[in-house]
Each structure stands twice: as structure tokens, then as C-alpha cells.
């Protein structure tokens, strides 16, 4: 399967680069199949933003911010494309050629495909409205580039809105290809899904597990008080044979393991994740016998306060990991040079709440946004909604700019993706080529 994708991708990338079309971007957490890494200065930031009742046009929108310090518009919103209504806008992902940004909504399951031919002006190219009909899944969450394809990890299903779900494969042009249920039954899986992380060298795909529609849509306070609902969180990760798309082993990882980050160093065979409810960092790695194992390697904050670790961002050097804890609005930097014993070395309060973190390839610039889920965000005046940009000098986060999304009548700031004009940045090719160049 992969071989066919790879061929398709080569043709596609060849074509596109001939036309000079693909938008380049980076983020250390993008799929390794994403081409044209930006190893230099990112120019634009696209923020998938949730509409808020009573604010502006009240609709979900893709907000584009100029993040090039040399630009006169640095730190300003230069574009905002509303998609109509609120459907729990959440995550986005590039196609492998970086021409398109797919943006999903977890409530009404619409998927918006933006054309980034001109990254300063994203254009809504296509809307997929039949995701549920095609797949039976609900809550298109992670959009992960494969060669010529995009893998969509869902969170729930249309039968009962519980956490049982799966992965759907689509072509880059938006046609449904196949669906793959998360492991259950004998393997020990709970059927839940959240993130996808692929390590092509090892031919493995790693998945994590969150919760179904009923919980992720519910008011967070109501949820925490609801004993029945609290039982419905994922407690597993699965390692799959990637080419065959079949699960090989399920690990017991209690407390909702979320974002997955593989080490980007060639030859490395480990990934990290954080469990939201139990506040742990978990390592998935190959042991001496070549068996995949999972173990908890660090505690994040004080678990008795439910700090709720959410997004994590691994440095391309694989020496550091940013970990955001939503409840105390704090980001924490972990030294992961000994991957079996990560240590927190720095922390900073970003706001009343913080969710996403994105860093530049060289780790010198770090960006944060605030929204987790519309009904999980803090209430009233604790509901900070902003994008904040920092420089990181190895010791301190120094603020560069802060964009208040409420004052700007935009909404709840969620997922961030960088982009840059094709001719402007240091393009390193795919992560694969980057690896072979630098090591």
C-alpha cells in the first residue's frame, strides 16, 4: 500500500514543484511524509479558530497571522476566512505536498480543505460533508499526511457517540479510500482514538486514545462531576504495522494518552506522549529484544491538581520537549536527553489556560494558543483567548507579540500551522531527506 502511495506522491510532488505551487511550512510535529520543511523563518501562522456566540460573526474561521519579524504586518491578522457556523473546529493538517490544509470540526464532522497556493490568503477549496456517511466515525481529529493520501484519526462514532472509532484514509483530493477500526477485543484495545504518529524507518504507526463525542462536547465542570462519564476515557496506545495498517500490539496507558511525538533523529525508535488525566509522560520504545514497550517516565506538575497536560512539542534536536498544562495555563520545558528520565527544567505561566504549542525548526521561536475545546475552556473572565509569540534563548521565553482573539472578535484560538512563500524559505525537502542531509 505504501509503495503505491509513495509513487503517487513522487509524481504529485514533481508536478507541483514544476509549477512552483506548494506552500512550505514546518513544525516539528508534522508527518514525516510532509515535503518542503521550513528550516528557516516561518512567515505565516494559520490558526484554526472556534467561533464564539456573541462575538464577531460567531463562526469558525481560519485566521492567518503574519509572523515574519521583517514584515510591516508582523504580529497582525492579515486574513480571516469564515466557514459558517460552529462545529467544534479543532485540528488541521497539511497534505504531503503542503498545498492544502485540511481542517476538521469535531461536532458536525465537516472537513474544510484550504488551498494555500498563496499562503497569505488561504482559499476554501472544498468542504467534505459526508465523513460520517462514508466512515461511520464521528469527530475527525488528526489529519496526518501520507504519500498522496491523508489519514484522519476520528474520536467517536455515529452509533452511540462513545469513544469507539477508527482511522479513515482519504486521497489528497478528498476521496474516501478506506477505514480502519481501532483495536478492540482480544488485543486488549478499548477502540478509542486520538493521535497518529508514524515512524517510516520502523514501519510503525502509533495511536493514542481520548474520549467520545459525549465527553469532549460536554461542559468540563459537568464532566468532572459526572462519575459515569469519567469512566469513558481512553487508556490505551496501539502500535500498528504501518504498511499493512494492522494493529500489532496494544499498551495499557491509563488516563487518556494524547499527542504523539516520535524522535526525529534517524535510527531513533522511540516516541513520547502525555496522559491528560493522570499527568504523566509515557515513552514508547523498542526494548533490547526488539519488542515495543510503553512505560511512564515522568510526572507533569502535581497530578492531584489535574494539571491536564495537553499539547507537547518536541525539538528537532530531540533534546527538549515543551509540555503545556491547560488547567494552570503553564508551559513546561522538559530536558529529554535521557529519554528514560525526562526532567522539567523551565516553566512559565502563559495565561489562565493554554493548549497548543508550536516551535520553529531551530527551536528559537515558540508560539502558544489557548483554546482546548469550546466547552472545556475556562468560563467568564478566565477564558483567555490569544496567540502569543515568544523567542526562546535557551533560558527564557521573551514575548514578541500577543494577539487577543476576543478583542479582535475572532473567537477561540486553537490549532496552529506555519507556512511560508515557496521561494522565501530554507527548504529542506521531506523529513527523510532532511535526515539524510544532516546526519
Amino acid at each position, binding site marked *: 500500500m505504501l509503495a503505491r502511495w509513495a509513487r503517487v506522491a513522487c509524481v504529485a510532488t514533481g508536478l507541483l514543484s514544476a509549477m512552483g505551487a506548494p506552500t512550505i511550512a514546518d513544525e516539528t510535529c508534522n508527518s514525516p511524509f510532509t515535503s518542503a520543511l521550513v528550516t528557516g523563518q516561518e512567515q505565516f501562522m494559520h490558526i484554526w479558530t472556534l467561533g464564539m456566540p456573541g462575538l464577531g460573526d460567531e463562526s469558525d474561521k481560519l485566521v492567518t497571522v503574519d509572523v515574519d519579524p521583517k514584515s510591516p504586518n508582523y504580529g497582525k491578522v492579515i486574513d480571516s476566512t469564515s466557514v459558517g457556523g460552529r*462545529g467544534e473546529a479543532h485540528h488541521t493538517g497539511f497534505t504531503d505536498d503542503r498545498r492544502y490544509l485540511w481542517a476538521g470540526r469535531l461536532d458536525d*464532522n465537516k472537513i474544510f480543505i484550504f488551498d494555500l497556493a498563496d499562503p497569505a490568503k488561504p482559499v476554501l477549496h472544498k468542504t467534505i460533508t459526508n465523513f460520517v456517511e462514508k466512515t461511520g466515525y464521528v469527530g475527525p481529529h488528526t489529519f496526518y499526511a501520507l504519500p498522496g493520501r491523508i489519514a484522519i484519526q476520528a474520536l467517536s462514532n455515529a452509533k*452511540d457517540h462513545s469513544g469507539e472509532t477508527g482511522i479513515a484514509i482519504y486521497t489528497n483530493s478528498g476521496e474516501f479510500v478506506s477505514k480502519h477500526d481501532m483495536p478492540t477485543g482480544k488485543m486488549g484495545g478499548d477502540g478509542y482514538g486520538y493521535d497518529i504518529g508514524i515512524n517510516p524507518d520502523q514501519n510503525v504507526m502509533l495511536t493514542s486514545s481520548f474520549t467520545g463525542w459525549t465527553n469532549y462536547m460536554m461542559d468540563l*465542570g459537568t464532566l468532572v462531576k*459526572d*462519575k*459515569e462519564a469519567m469512566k469513558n476515557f481512553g487508556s490505551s496506545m496501539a502500535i500498528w504495522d504501518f504498511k499493512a495498517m494492522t494493529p500489532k500490539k496494544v499498551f495499557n496507558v491509563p488516563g487518556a494518552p494524547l499527542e504523539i511525538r516520535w524522535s526525529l533523529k534517524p535510527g531513533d525508535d522511540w516516541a513520547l506522549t502525555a496522559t491528560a488525566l493522570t499527568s504523566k509522560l509515557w515513552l514508547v520504545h523498542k526494548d533490547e529484544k526488539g519488542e515495543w514497550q510503553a512505560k511512564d517516565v515522568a510526572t507533569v506538575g502535581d497530578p492531584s491538581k489535574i494539571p491536564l497536560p495537553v499539547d507537547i512539542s518536541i525539538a528537532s534536536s530531540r533534546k527538549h520537549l515543551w509540555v503545556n498544562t491547560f488547567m494552570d495555563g503553564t508551559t513546561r520545558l522538559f530536558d529529554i536527553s535521557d529519554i528514560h528520565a525526562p526532567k522539567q527544567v523551565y516553566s512559565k505561566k502563559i495565561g489562565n489556560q493554554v493548549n497548543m504549542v508550536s516551535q520553529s525548526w531551530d527551536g528559537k521561536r515558540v508560539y502558544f494558543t489557548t483554546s482546548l475545546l469550546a466547552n472545556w475552556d475556562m468560563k467568564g473572565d478566565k477564558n483567555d483567548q490569544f496567540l502569543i509569540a515568544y523567542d526562546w534563548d535557551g533560558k527564557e521565553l521573551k514575548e514578541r507579540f500577543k494577539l487577543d482573539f476576543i478583542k479582535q472578535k475572532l473567537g477561540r484560538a486553537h490549532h496552529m500551522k506555519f507556512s511560508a512563500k515557496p521561494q522565501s524559505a530554507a527548504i529542506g525537502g521531506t523529513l527523510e531527506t532532511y535526515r539524510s542531509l544532516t546526519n
Partner: protein
Amino acid sequence: MKLSVLWLSGFAFSALLVGGYAFGNPGAQVPRDLTQSEERRSGTNNAHLPLGLPPLPDTVQWPTKAAVELGKRLFFDRRLSFNNTLSCAMCHLQENAFASNQSAKAVGFEGRTLQRNAPSLLNVAYQKWLFHDGRENHIEWQVWLPLLSPVEMANPSIGSVIERVRHLDDYIAVFEKTYPEEGLTPNTLGHALAAYEITLVSGNSRFDKWRFGNDDGAMSAQEKAGFALFVGKAGCSNCHHIGEQTALFTDMQFHNTGIGYKAMVDPVSSYKVELAKGVFIDVPSSDVERYSEKPINDIGRFAVTLKEEDRWAYKTPTLRDVSKTGPYMHDGSLATLKEVVNYYNGGGYANEGLSGRLAPLNLSAREIEALVAFLKTLDGELSYWETSTNQGVESPAAIADDGPVVLRPPGERE
């Protein structure tokens, strides 16, 4: 196994009821037979109701297959909500006896918290009053509350629902076939949904076999002891009625059991939260407030009648299939049947309006176990029509026969 066959008759349903109406005289409402056919009217004779259930009330028309099939499609169709996300079945889950085990209070449009727990729809045809506060009184009209509620299916108007359905698949053709005179109208939409709901009957439980079917081996000694407590020392059947030949386990009345009052006054200083299986922590409520919406106050039946005695009174629910319908009470505040029995054992949360039928019961641990065991014998057989892979939209070609629906026990097909 043989089902007892109960013929529908002109059984006076209201004879079951004690007490007066809170408003108007809704009991007299007998909606027109929208399918406009005499045979279909008399076709009710084919209703094979399971053991333990009384004849349906006069206000309920035994439906035709065509109406039931249509109603079933509508019931499972998520496109009936404004954002195509919630069908009736997403809150009334078939696998949870048409209640929901997923949350204490139902979750609605854009994740809004509903005021209350989603009740089971099994045997809903018998309900005199609908909703925990009884604010609706006919099953055909009830559908408009979830369809139009901004926190449930969030449609902006009746007309927009009709337009929406008109543009989905070929519903319009099926409506025209099922209701030749009227086609798709607010009335027929309600009729079709109700038709399906009426077929959700559940009886022939182990209790029914023992009590009404002379099968002494159907219940264990402990369960029988539980029954004796239920109708005796524990006084449960004072409200959860059991008849001579049938039982609905409800008096169709409203009572203050203290649950609603407790939710209002009881200050909670911390919550015990399960972070992962078996991993619990205490979270101070001041922490939870930061990310909690303002809780919705709930004054129960009082909001409907404005009669002082109805403050924090809620409808007595049927207890059939109760093992599958947790969490319990109108607010889902009790997780297990054991918690419910323990609550009653304490006599209910004291307040001015507390029902005089509740008092501390002094049940022993063994008696509590027995009572819980008895409640678990009430799991019925869901003899609704076509036991079902009810996942929604079926081809209208399947809806050819317009004769009356015949109930079959599970596994046995026409």
C-alpha cells in the same frame, strides 16, 4: 417459550390513575387516526404484548408497519437536528434500553448540558405524563420539544423541520404513501415518530414469568425476598405500583423524594474524580468552578403547575429494565441501584415537601442486596417490532406492507 397474548380492548387507562390532572383534561385527547383506515384501527387486535404489560391506553393508537418503519428511520436520523449531529437515538440509546449510560445529564446541541437525565423510552406508550416534570401529555406532540429546543436538536422552527425532512432522501414519498391524505405535516411527523416509540415495549422479564406466568423457578430465593421487601417493609410499591395481572412499576404521579431539593441546597466541598480505572483524587469544588458553567436550577413539577406541593417533585419512573438505564433519578445523581436503595434506606433527603411515604427503612445489608437483586429481575425482552439492526435509514422499498405491526419475541421473525 410462549408469550401471553393480550388483546387490546377499550380498557380504561385512566382507571389506573389516582388523583387529578394538573391542567386541562389531556386524558380526553384521542388524536385522529392519521392513517385514515378502519382496518388499521381494528388492527390493534394484533398487538402481542409481552407478559406483564397491561393493554395500551386509549389515547395511544396501535400503529401500522408503514408508520413504524418511517418513524424508526426518523428516530435514528441525525439529520433531523440543525447541525446533523443529534438524532433522538443519540440520547436514547438502543443499547442502553433507550436511555443513556454515558452521562448523568444528557448532552445536547453544541455540547450544551441538558437539565436532566435522558429517561428510557421502553414502554413509553403507557406514560400518562411525559418528561420528569410531566410537562407534555401526548407522545405525538412530545417530539416537538427535542426537535425545537435550542439545547437539543436546535431547529429554529416547525416549518424548518418540515422543509428539512422534505429535502432528505425520499422521505416525502414515504410520507405520502403512509399518510395518503395528509402527506408530510407536523402532525404526521409526530405520528410516525410516536408510532415507532409505541412499539418499544418490554416485558416478559423473569419477574413477570414468576409473578404472572406461574414459573416458580424464574426467580431465586434472594430475588423473591427482595420482592417481599419491595411490596412490604421497604414500601417501594406504594409508588412503583404492581398490579394483579400486570405491572408498570409506577403510579404515574409526582413525588418529592428529596433528590431535587438535595441538589439545590447540598453544598459540595469536593468531588471524587476517577482519573483512570481505580485512580481517584479529590478535587475541591472551588477548582471545578473555574471551568464549570453555571448549573441549571431545577424545581421539578412546580415549574409546570406552580402548586407549592409540586416543588422538587418528579414523576415516578417505571422500573422495568432499570438495571440498564443508569445513572438514576432525574439528574442522574445516583450511579448504581445499590446507591438508590441506600438512598431510600436513609428515608430520602429531608425537606418540607418530602413525600410522606418515605421514611428511614432500617434495611440490613442483606436486605439491601436482596432488593437490588429483585430490581435486576425486571430486565425484559425488548419485543419491539423486528428486533433490529436499527441503524437508521433503510430503503423505503422495505416499507411495503401497511398492515398493523405485530410484535414478535426476539429472534423470531416474520
